[in-house]
């Protein structure tokens, strides 16, 4: 060993640890911990971006007022069948979570998580302004709703297609490894490249989809400016973009399933789809749950697709939470209200992170 650092020879283990930890702890404290608490602090103020930039004292402490302005309204009441579809799904979902746990398809943690989500789905849409009342922010809850619709469409799409693909390409041959690379490739493109491609794919005048429909005598569909199709277009784009990582995680899960199980099943004539249903799915339950939770966390943060492809439109039909936070902060300069929404986002995502952590620890 070189004879440098002779002064370090007297350094104790704790001192060495401190020196080595310092770079990370410093950046971590400065750029994550402090901003996090500062975000909460901003959310308790009436804080205009421009005004405070010119005069640091131009902010006013308002307590939880921003949260009220974002989430609450005048004369809000609650009813059991205000949004019948969501609320009935909530009740059914609650029953389903108990049922799935009883028959042993899902673990306790998963059942509890599903149950809580179902209760929220029953309770939250029941709030509404009474006669003469109104929401202080008309756009917030519809935006949350759009985000949930996006997550609700994208996550199953990604999970189901990634699972089927992973099961199909799970062989160590050259052709299969080429397929794996190919299906993963779109994942590593940036959101701006992905939206660039798909914006033009969906274009009614220049788009590939329109060109093909026209050749077969159809009239081109105006995807991105149609209130009902815009969200579908963004969901398709996102599935194309983010299938890769889910497939990789499923492949890792598939590697852990013993080959003996399949060989034993083959003796009972269970191959192909039968083997997939009776062996692959039950043994992959943990991975499936983890991928779902991860995808929910990932897709809940959707921003670029809605920002670049539709600008949240038409008529706010693709306005999502992060884009609303961005606009409230940097277009309307209302940092207080935007921060309150960011805290709301953190609470939801934090709940899913805890769930992910608990699920990761479960079993084994």
């Amino acid at each position, binding site marked *: 060993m070189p004879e440098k650092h002779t002064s370090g020879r007297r350094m104790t283990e704790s001192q060495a*640890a401190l020196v080595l930890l310092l770079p990370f702890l410093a950046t971590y404290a400065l750029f994550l911990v402090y901003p996090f608490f500062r975000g909460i602090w901003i959310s308790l103020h009436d804080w205009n971006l421009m005004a405070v930039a010119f005069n640091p004292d131009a902010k006013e402490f308002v307590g939880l007022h921003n949260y009220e302005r974002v989430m609450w309204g005048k004369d809000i009441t609650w009813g059991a069948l205000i949004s019948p579809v969501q609320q009935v799904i909530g009740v059914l979902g609650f029953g389903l979570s108990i049922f799935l746990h009883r028959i042993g398809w899902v673990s306790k943690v998963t059942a509890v998580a599903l149950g809580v989500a179902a209760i929220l789905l029953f309770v939250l849409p029941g709030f509404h302004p009474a006669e003469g009342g109104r929401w202080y922010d008309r756009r917030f809850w519809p935006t949350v709703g759009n985000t949930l619709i996006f997550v609700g469409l994208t996550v199953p799409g990604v999970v189901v297609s990634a699972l089927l693909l992973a099961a*199909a390409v799970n062989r160590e041959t050259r052709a299969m490894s080429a397929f794996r690379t190919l299906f993963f490739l779109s994942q590593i493109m940036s959101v701006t490249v992905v939206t660039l491609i798909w914006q033009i794919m969906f274009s009614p005048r220049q788009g590939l989809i329109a060109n093909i429909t026209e050749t077969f005598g159809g009239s081109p569909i105006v995807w991105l400016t149609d209130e009902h199709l815009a969200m579908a277009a963004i969901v398709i784009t996102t599935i194309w973009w983010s299938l890769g990582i889910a497939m990789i995680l499923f492949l890792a899960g598939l590697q852990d399933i013993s080959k003996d199980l399949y060989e034993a099943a083959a003796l009972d004539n269970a191959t192909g789809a039968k083997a997939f249903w009776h062996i692959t799915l039950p043994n992959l339950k943990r991975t499936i749950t983890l991928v779902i939770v991860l995808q929910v966390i990932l897709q809940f943060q959707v921003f670029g697709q809605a920002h670049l492809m539709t600008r949240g439109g038409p008529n706010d039909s693709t306005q999502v939470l992060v884009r609303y936070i961005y606009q409230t902060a940097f277009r309307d300069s209302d940092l207080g209200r935007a921060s309150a929404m960011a805290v709301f986002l953190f609470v939801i995502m934090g709940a899913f992170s805890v769930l992910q952590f608990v699920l990761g620890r479960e079993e084994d």
Partner: protein
Amino acid sequence: MLNRGYYWLITALAVPAFLWLIPTIWMVSLSFQPNEVLARTTSTTAFGLIPLPFTIENYVALFSFGQTPLWFLNSLIVAAGMALGVLLVSTTSGYALARLDFPFKKSLTIICLIGLMVPEQAVFIPLYTMFADLGWHNSYQALILPRLAVPIGVFLMMQFFKAIPDDIEEAARLDGVTWLQIFWYVMLPLARPAMMTLAILTVLYAWNDYLWPLVSAQRQEFFTITLGLASIQSNFAQSEGLGRVMASGVIASLPVVIMFLIFQRYVVQAMTVGGSKG
């Protein structure tokens, strides 16, 4: 395994695989077609999937004027800076947390990893005000620094250092080598594969990052290629021409695609570890 069913599977997979590739092929193909043709129709040959008539004019134009080369350079600087920074803070802290003994170790580990719960969207507004107070927006440090505090890097390195057998370190310690020397001369060389994984993951992340550069870099000189591409795609048809915008898209993707194809093994490994735990 190589029976008839296998060849049937390959054929069956070829269809979705081709569909999956079409958008990418289309982008590449459009980037090689003249703008005058694209202004009339995008489906000249085989729905535009084959670049006929062919031209490389779009790429020549891209590099002779416009700001794409500068944005490309900015992306390289930011990605390299971020990768170096993340490696520095993650290897040191990962080693300390995994292999050294010190007071409050357990609580410190939890504190370091709990940050995994905080999404960037929860901190980008306060970060914006902090950097505005410092007057640091529109600079490389503004694009790089907030991204060094990534607990996932610490987690990856910690897992790696934990797996190294004790006797290697023990032998060095008996020779009277200091802790920092063990870290530098013994541990870091062993950690090369894990550092490689982390570096690739960070470069991919830096290259594709969008939200933070969008709020921090308002001047075009400090746009990354991802951000620059977003700024020209909104009015592509009028100003730049479709072919040129598509060429920018190809150029913007090329480095990460090439990197992925070369280091696929590392990327997949990183995604698996990072995905299931972080």
